[in-house]
């Protein structure tokens, strides 16, 4: 199934399984079903449990917190992460702190889906991946699955967990396909997944960059460079052990970050792993991230903006000190600002 279908499937499983689950957000019951991820859920589970909302992101986050305290398991969806910036007060001051500030007795099992935009002129206010903000906040969990199976499994873990979870869902992954277990499939929050195994370089990725990295890693493998490719899946908590044990083996670290470079999650990983694996590093750890600039609307300016397989392969080459053939990775069957040829706008 596709990633979007996997998200929908997770929601349907949760709604089916527990009457406490509710799903809401702008357009949740709309005819397009938030890129297909909520299609038909209102018809199936009723308008009491699956519903639209006012354009009131801060309050509707607080409503989710209250609903969770009242025994529900709410899932709130934002069509873009950018809109959720209106709700950082409720997320940071309330959801993240409720357990702590009331003495640790209970948390807020609220799941907030945020869709990450990219390309087709999404531009400065519809394409931000500000995962670093959420990953900095004690009390929040942040997950960013790359595959349909992980999307489903992490969403179910989020919904049925005891903590607030920011669920980052890349718009360009919605059409990606993959095997997805049926039923109540769970992927534990905080555990990374090794997608490829190799002794030369540790590549750490997440979300759409895990797919770009897969291409790059397989490409350089043919040239004799073997990488451990670690798909983080969770950004907070982060699976430090997985990265650390890999780096102790490879001695080389490349971290990919779908957010801005300065102050991003990759920096945190580089910093912590450097300190922890000091004696094992054979080369300075490196990172590839978005530039410290918003995404422009102009297709001319998004061309070099995103990290792609060719950049990753090149960075791997730099780390091992061997120039690798990477240019063949640059060829794409569709324009750089859409996920595929079937995408023709308008958003």
């Amino acid at each position, binding site marked *: 199934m596709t990633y979007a279908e996997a998200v929908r499937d997770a929601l349907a499983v949760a709604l089916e399984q527990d009457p406490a689950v509710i799903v809401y957000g702008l357009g949740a019951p709309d005819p397009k079903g938030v890129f297909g991820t909520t299609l038909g859920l209102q018809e199936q589970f009723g308008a009491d449990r699956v519903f639209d909302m006012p354009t009131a992101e*801060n309050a509707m986050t607080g409503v989710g917190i209250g609903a969770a305290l009242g025994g529900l398991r709410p899932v709130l969806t934002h069509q873009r992460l950018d809109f959720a910036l209106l709700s950082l007060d409720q997320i940071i001051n309330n959801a993240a702190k409720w357990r702590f500030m009331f003495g640790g007795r209970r948390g807020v099992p609220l799941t907030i889906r945020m869709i990450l935009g990219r390309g087709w002129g999404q531009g400065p206010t519809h394409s931000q991946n500000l995962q670093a903000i959420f990953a900095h906040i004690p009390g929040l969990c942040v997950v960013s699955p790359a595959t349909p199976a992980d999307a489903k499994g992490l969403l179910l873990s989020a919904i049925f967990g005891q903590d607030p979870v920011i669920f980052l869902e890349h718009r360009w992954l919605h059409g990606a396909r993959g095997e997805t277990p049926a039923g109540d499939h769970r992927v534990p929050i905080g555990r990374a997944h090794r997608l490829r195994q190799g002794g030369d370089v540790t590549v750490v990725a997440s979300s759409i960059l895990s797919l770009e990295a897969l291409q790059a890693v397989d490409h350089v493998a043919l040239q004799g460079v073997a990488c451990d490719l670690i798909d983080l899946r969770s950004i907070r908590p982060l699976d430090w052990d997985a990265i650390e044990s890999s780096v102790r083996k490879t001695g080389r670290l490349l971290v990919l970050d779908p957010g801005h470079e300065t102050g991003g999650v990759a920096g945190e990983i580089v910093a912590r792993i450097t300190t922890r694996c000091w004696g094992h590093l054979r080369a300075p750890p490196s990172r590839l991230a978005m530039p410290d600039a918003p995404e422009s609307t102009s297709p001319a300016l998004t061309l070099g903006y995103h990290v792609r397989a060719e950049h990753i392969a090149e960075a791997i080459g730099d780390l091992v000190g061997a120039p690798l053939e990477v240019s063949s990775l640059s060829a794409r069957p569709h324009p750089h600002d859409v996920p595929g040829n079937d995408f023709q706008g308008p958003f």
Partner: protein
Amino acid sequence: MVHPLDSGVSRHILRDMIRIRAVEEAIADRYGEQKMRCPTHLSIGQEGPAAAVGAVLGPEDLAVSGHRAHAHYLAKGGDLPAMIAEIYGKATGCSRGNGGSMHLVDEAVGFMGSTAIVGGTVPVGVGLALSLAVRRKPGLVCIFIGDAVLETGVFYESAGFAAVRKLPVLFVCENNLYSVYSPLEVRQPAGRALSDVAAAVGLQASSGDGNDPRAAYGLLKSAADRARSGDGPQFVELATYRWREHCGPLFDNDLGYRSEAEYLVWKARDPIPRLMQELREEGALDPAWLAAAEAEIRAEIEAAFAFAEASPFPDPVLASTDIYSREIAPFP
């Protein structure tokens, strides 16, 4: 002359006001000892609304509040020793010392939490009401707010959603004319009555004198009944006045942001002697009952402070384990 309100309820309100005042004054008296080391907002002078609400709400009803929440917590039945211990930062505090005066909770009695960001619990209260509706449970959610909350966007967003879904919410707005040192006119448009605004955004609204707690009870009771019977969210504005400084134990009229004359007018409208006098005139106040109540309250307060003082501080290890559930913690 018999007041329409049942005299038992009236005495309940009176006792609650006396109790809240006594607790707040005990805090004020001892604050200088520097053992209560956190920002503390007292309700002395404005006990009326809280006590009236306390008489209206039942055990199945829930409540949330803001920074000035001692009175609300107590009126809802919150545990007094746990509150005092919380202000002392002790492990026996209702929030295990993490929250202090501004973050009180007692879920056992439906007091679901008070927090320190103005307006911050408003949507939380609405969400609790949503949970009642979805789970088809009885009861309502009382959301205590101050006049400043009508400046916050989140109030309007929350009220709108509550109205769309006709949720069982009762907003109780204590309009004490000030937000910290700022009078209403530098914050809100002239001539804009809080309850009119509330009505326009979709709440059923009324307003009255918070220092006449029996009148307030009447308004609140009708509103609560409407909320419970599915009429949708309600808003009751109650005029009242804080006697002491915004935060802390002292008086601060000398600062000049409000006049001594204004303070004296409101002090003359003290809800406690007023209700006492009324009940006396109605022959509904037995002096022995009053003396016993006052003695009980005194003893209860003494015991609460003794409990707080004797309680241990929390174990430092908790500060890092209280953040996530056991499945997630400890964050590496």
